[in-house]
């Protein structure tokens, strides 16, 4: 029996998608006066929403970069012990290569988050509200305090993002359907499906300090007991030296601004549909669904291959190995199959499921920018997704999914394809996409990039005790 998660310590987004507060503001802050910022943090603490809190009209959460930790006075070596990827940052040249952030998506072109060129980023204040007026009031109240708190608002990233009422991202497809459920949480208890492989994942895959799928704890950072004289932090488990644990109940957060070329996407698909002899919008939509693996409503092609079915909009208890191993319904290279292969990539369905469970992400993204009125007519306005993912091990989870599944030309036995929504810009102009069919496959070619990375950062979403410790020391 694994110990219960201390939900009152864990920040809310780890457990909840906050669908009831669709409007959000993400404010990047730079610490200019450490002492004042600590006072501000002390006063902010009661407002931080934990996973134990119920639904409210507003929620407040705070994450830190490695630079933010040192800006608040934490020793650089301690921040470094949170892990190489976190400390080096998403924009480190070798990590950018690993993530496929090259060409137009390279950090050199980012609007923010390129540490060598753009403004330093320390704290990310996340404000959520039921509607826009409530959000703006909340933002205003917080913004008024920044100057006195020694905080500077850093511009560059879109500050507002929302879960659209339709649930669909800008291309027009429901997003965020497949989410892991944390074992022991109320959502997992409600989940009735006995589907093989399921989606109930050990807490340690998302929250530091608990057993993960291998029955082990992810690496954490700690400080000597002498640095925590008031005993704010929990003790490091099984440590004879009595060090205090900074990571426990925290989670690593991936933040990426992914710009979407909506008109480019639909114009390409219409052209490809026409090349296949069908100029109808339905034919373009079918191709789009093949690229994504779900219909606009969210219904998975693996379950509903021929037409959209809104009754299956949130369907998530399905696999590929038995239903669709050849990809006749959902192509092997489709986005949802690459991002979470479920039971399909491994020596057997069982092994494949074990593998997938080892590489899950809790996604908390939202859309930014206005909807495009005519999907095939670009309006020159930027729009996209603020991609947010939470995990306990950046290398084994986020970076692995990006490198080994999304960008891997050989994924699932393919030869030279990439995720259709991959932001990687490697100069290839005719990246193919194979759609298996009877009698013979169809191959799309000349697919342009539809997604460009405009900025990104690795953060840590610490527990309440760690925030209190940072404010007090």
């Amino acid at each position, binding site marked *: 029996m694994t110990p219960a998660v201390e939900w009152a310590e864990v920040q809310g987004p780890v457990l909840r998608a906050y669908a009831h507060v669709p409007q959000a503001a993400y404010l990047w802050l730079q610490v200019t006066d450490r002492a004042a910022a600590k006072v501000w943090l002390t006063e902010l603490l009661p407002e931080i929403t934990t996973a134990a809190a119920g639904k409210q009209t507003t929620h407040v959460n705070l994450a830190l970069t490695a630079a933010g930790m040192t800006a608040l006075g934490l020793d650089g070596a301690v921040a470094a012990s949170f892990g190489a990827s976190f400390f080096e940052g998403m924009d480190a040249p070798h990590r950018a*290569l690993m993530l496929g952030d090259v060409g137009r998506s390279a950090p050199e072109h980012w609007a923010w988050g390129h540490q060598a060129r753009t403004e330093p980023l320390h704290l990310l204040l996340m404000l959520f509200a039921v509607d826009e007026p409530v959000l703006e009031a909340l933002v205003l109240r917080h913004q008024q305090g920044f100057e006195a708190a020694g905080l500077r608002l850093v511009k560059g990233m879109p500050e507002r993002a929302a879960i659209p009422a339709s649930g669909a991202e800008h291309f027009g497809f429901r997003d965020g359907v497949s989410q892991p459920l944390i074992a022991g949480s109320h959502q997992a208890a409600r989940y009735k499906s006995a589907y093989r492989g399921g989606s109930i994942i050990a807490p340690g895959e998302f929250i530091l300090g608990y057993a993960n799928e291998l029955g082990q704890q992810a690496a954490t950072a700690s400080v000597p007991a002498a640095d925590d004289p008031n005993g704010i932090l929990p003790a490091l488990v099984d440590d004879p030296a009595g060090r205090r644990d900074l990571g426990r109940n925290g989670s690593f957060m991936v933040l990426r601004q992914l710009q979407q070329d909506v008109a480019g996407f639909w114009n390409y698909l219409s052209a490809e549909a026409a090349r296949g002899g069908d100029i109808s919008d339905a034919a373009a939509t079918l191709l789009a669904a093949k690229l994504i693996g779900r219909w606009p409503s969210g219904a998975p092609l693996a379950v509903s291959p021929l037409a959209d079915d809104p009754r299956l909009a949130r369907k998530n208890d399905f696999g590929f190995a038995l239903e669709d191993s050849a990809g006749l319904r959902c192509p092997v290279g489709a986005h949802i199959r690459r991002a979470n292969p479920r039971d399909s990539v491994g020596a057997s369905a069982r092994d494949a499921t074990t593998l997938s469970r080892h590489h899950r992400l809790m996604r908390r993204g939202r859309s930014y920018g206005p909807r495009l009125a005519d999907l095939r007519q670009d309006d020159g306005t930027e729009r996209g997704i603020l991609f947010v993912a939470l995990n306990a091990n950046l290398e*084994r989870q986020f970076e692995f999914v990006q490198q080994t599944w999304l960008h891997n030309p050989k994924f*699932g036995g393919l030869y030279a394809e990439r995720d259709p929504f991959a932001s990687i810009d490697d100069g290839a102009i005719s990246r193919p996409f194979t759609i298996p069919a009877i009698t*013979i496959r169809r191959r799309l070619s000349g697919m342009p990039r539809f997604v460009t990375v405009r900025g990104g950062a690795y953060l840590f979403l610490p527990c309440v005790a760690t925030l209190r410790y940072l404010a007090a020391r």
Partner: protein
Amino acid sequence: MQTALTVVTRIPEGQVEPLRAELDPARAAAGASLLDRFAALPTLHFACLFIADATLDLPACLVFEASVDGATGDFLDLLLAIAGSELDAIYRYCADYPESAGRQIAKAYLLRHDFGAATFFAGCPGRSVGEIRREAALHAALQDVIDGGTGAAANHAGDIMAAARAIRGNLPGSFSWAAEPPVRPFLASHGKAVVAALLGVIVLVLVLLARALTPIGLLLLLALPIGAFLAVLRWHELRDDAAQRQAPMPTMRVREVAIVEQESRPGRVQNHLASVTYVKPGAFRLATLKFVLRSIDVLGRLVYNRGRLGKATGIHFARWTLIDDGRRLLFMSNFDGSWESYLDDFILFASSGLTAVFSNTAGFPKTRFLVGGGARDEPRFKAFAVASQVPSLLWYSAYPDLTVGNIDNNTAVREGLSAELDMVAADAWLRRFAGGGPS
């Protein structure tokens, strides 16, 4: 037949850095030129040169690893004919190398320092470089046939048999060789039968022994040495644990940036891993290690000869080689995909074999009865893997764009050209043009 060549030569003190510079393909040194020469060798699958650093009283060594078709002697003849001057430029930094003494003397030197492999695993046994390349071209040509009118016409007919016929019928003339089916090596197709026969012999011997010794006598005969081995093993493990207990939990693992950059280039499909570990002292550990390595070698030839080592996929060639009279263990692998996914495969699906080997080397995570724990301890195992990896200074692949899965699929595509296809087989063959095979 594929062979492992592992030439290990001592580098005298003071020569390591000049040699490293000579190997650097980024500089216009012998290394860059050698890479070009490798490409002209029709029997070379993979090659790598790396340096095992000097540690304690063990000298720095240059390791030249090659996976080749045919005998190593024949390969060296070719290599020396094509790249004699490059090898001279590199090996003159090594001890006792007979520089400019002629090909035969250089060949004798290299053969004398060939340590081969205690364990050699091939993911595509019996497939020659030439066949692998030709079958890849065949697959690509047939994909073009499908993209041309033929495939579309066949699809329009909606008839599986007609589609297969149309594709086969439009095979470009330059691929007429492909009408001949590939030859699978004997053990790859009959390995299971050999295993069954061996098991049969063992059972027969046991039955005869039981008659001669009475069943209880046989039981004692078997149980006593095994029990004694396990007891001594456990004693060693507990002693090793006590020695390692004080070592702190590795909270961070930092891989060398240069290695990560090299492995992460966009479009990079295969990677190389070279590691140097130190065998724990004592005859017991060395004997156990040798037995385990031999066992995995035999299993790889008899059972795991269809592209998978246990459940780990995507390994083209892997080997373990013992050097310095069994004091250092080299591990070299040419594999598909990222380092992170390679290690994960081992942790999740092949930890026992890996643990049985590396638990006999220093610094490996706590192990129980040779196969338990060890590599399952992800943070400590990855820290061990990071600490033991050395940069693959010069690495060559004859077919850098192909995974083991691609190679197998291409061979199966070729087999489909000459096989009698019924409806089910024709459908399966047509699916081979849509990916979806094992990753």
